[in-house]
């Protein structure tokens, strides 16, 4: 993390929201909720960082070094909108493609490919996973949420 979570909160308190929004810290966050759990002032630190992520993504202000995380999450939602449930192979495909377009890096492209045979052999790779019957309602839900 380039800045610590307490510093992110401090920046927001001090009216320096932009620095917080542009930080890598908010994307490095794992949403493990340890911060909110321990805070003696009951500050929902994890919730604040969530809100900053949403704003940074919506405003296109995300830190450049953390683009991959944003791309992954966006691709994830795209995948759910289409299928209602996660289609892993399609997600990986979309994620890798978009990540490569943003930042070409062949080693990244092929990094997880080595696991594919093992996953196949262990019957963990599903080319056509069981799907949701009513996909239209999923699309409507997404639309109503502005997503």
């Amino acid at each position: 993390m380039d800045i610590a979570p307490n510093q992110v909160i401090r920046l927001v308190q001090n009216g320096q929201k932009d620095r917080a929004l542009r930080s890598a810290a908010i994307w490095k966050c794992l949403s493990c909720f340890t911060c909110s759990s321990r805070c003696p002032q009951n500050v929902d630190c994890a919730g604040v960082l969530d809100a900053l992520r949403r704003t940074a993504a919506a405003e296109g202000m995300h830190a450049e070094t953390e683009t991959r995380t944003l791309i992954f999450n966006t691709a994830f939602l795209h995948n759910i909108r289409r299928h209602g449930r996660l289609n892993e192979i399609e997600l990986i495909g979309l994620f890798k493609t978009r990540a490569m377009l943003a930042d070409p890096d062949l080693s990244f492209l092929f990094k997880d490919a080595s696991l594919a045979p093992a996953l196949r052999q262990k019957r963990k790779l599903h080319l056509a996973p069981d799907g949701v019957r009513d996909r239209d309602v999923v699309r409507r839900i997404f639309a109503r949420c502005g997503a």
Partner: protein
Amino acid sequence: MAIGYYPGCALRGSSNDYEQSVRVCLKALGAELKELDDWICCGATAAHSLNEKLSVALPARNLAIAERDGFDELFAPCPMCSMELMKAAKEIAADSRLREEMAGIVELPVTGRTKILNLIQLLERFDLKPSKPLDGIIAACYYGCLLTRPASIVGFDDPEAPSSMETILAKLGAKTVNWNFRTECCGAGKTMCDEETVLDLAHKILSDAQRSGANCLVVACPMCHVNLDMKQAAAGKRFGVDHNLPVYYLSDLVGMALGFSPAELGVDRHFVVRLAHG
């Protein structure tokens, strides 16, 4: 007993070994899992990171289906799903305007009254009598994040010193160790987009478990399993260590104590297939 069942995307994807294990073990205990009709993804990390309304609506849709189909309780083996479902249920139950709004979005009435159970809570309801006690198992129970946090939402066990898994394992005849990183995050959904962080964390967790004398790790979360099992070799390689530590789902150990073979439980489909005992 019959109970509503929400598998979640991971169990239908590359963590289908978890589902296999859960189904075998619960069937043997006498639980009938009634899968929620046409359930959809809970939204996971992506939804709450990018769209607040969606992060409530996706779980709300599932809660609405559960209510429509008469389920008072829903069993969700993945803690990400169970936490998101509980969070949405709590918010909806407390706010009548949100209830109305969600009903409009998900096209079904929803009140948030459904009770969500994780794997440990479900197993606690059974009188576990092992036919093959787990002698030789020295387990480091790993809870990760979302089983016990946020405490105000999940209200389960002690977020700093949980013991519910240890209690179950003791009933199965297994030994457990006291170790340091029971609730430290494994890297969660960052496996694809920030692998380095995941490998760092996985290495620390696996090392501490081994240092404490454990011969296996036990988890109740598919993401944790991926980060600690599928990525174990990569984590070890990064630090020049061969951990070779089996990572079991809690349902694996329950199943093996009830007499099932590892293959029947899908344990042979883990990446670290060495057995810790016998």
